[in-house]
């Protein structure tokens, strides 16, 4: 019986030691303000990602628009050359 009590005491001590380690761990966690800072940063990143996606979409639409306008302008210049040739005949 005494032997058992010693075992219990030893186990309880071990638990307290381990438990104290856990509490020490808790005390090194970021506080509420720091977590808010991280959350704000994450939100800012998400918002910037959306901005980048929208800007890239706008850029590719402008790319197409410019290509079409260049083609139209080229055709107009070609037409001018053809009309000059026809007028010269």
């Amino acid at each position, binding site marked *: 019986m005494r032997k*058992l*009590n010693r*075992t*219990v005491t030893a*186990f*309880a001590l071990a*638990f307290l030691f*381990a*438990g104290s380690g*856990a509490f020490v*761990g*808790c005390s*090194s*966690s*970021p506080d509420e303000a*720091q*977590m808010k*800072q*991280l959350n704000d*940063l*994450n939100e*800012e*990143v998400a918002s*910037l*990602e959306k*901005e*980048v996606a929208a*800007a*890239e979409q*706008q*850029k590719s639409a*402008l*790319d197409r*628009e*410019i290509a079409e*306008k*260049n083609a*139209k*302008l080229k055709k*107009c*210049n*070609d*037409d*001018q050359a*053809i*009309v*000059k040739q*026809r*007028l010269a005949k």
Partner: protein
Amino acid sequence: MKVTTVLFVLAALLVVAIGANAQEMTKEQWQQEINKQTQVRNDLSAKVKALAADVARMQNESTQLDADYQKCLDELYALVGSDQAKAAAYRAEIEAAENNAGELMRLSDADLVARADDVSALAAKVKSLWENKLSLIPEFWDRLTALNDKVKSLQGTLANQVQMYTVGTWAKDRDCLWNISKKKDIYNNAWLWPKIWQGNRDQIKDPDVIQKGQKLKIPKGNELDAEEKAAAKRYYGKKGGA
């Protein structure tokens, strides 16, 4: 029994404490995450800035291209002594002629014959459109070329239509080849009667004999060809000899 219970409770508490501790972020992990996300934010901010600059540059380029195109069009129309407003009106005229041609192309041959005057009017319209110097511009040139083809096709269809005439009675209509040929809506020229004879040799053996109800083909043309002249000569020769 009591000792076992104490052991069990202690073990359970330990497990809960460890589990709770494992779910929470440590300060080091927080710092790492802050550093990582700060870098991502900075990269993204730089990218947004660069993209905004690209977009602004491209919008300017697009606006400049619009201006260049308008200038090019003005110069193009000026080459033929015109301007954008006149070109727009000319374009509308071509479109109307195209619609007209499309409508005529959809008609049956019989309906087309009935609207032969519209084909002639269309041909005249296309001719007048060609006379405008704007026709030298490829856009209009190509459309007028296509219209020409349609007009030619319509005229070809009309030319291939053989007019028919149903013979009436001598008593009422005075129908003989000479008189039929003399009719205004046939040849308006009695001397062209051999055309009708030669065009209907399958059913007219003797040009002096035609029957009521006979359907005669009226060949196109306003003068006799060599074969028709020869046939007429033979006929008058026989008559003279008789």
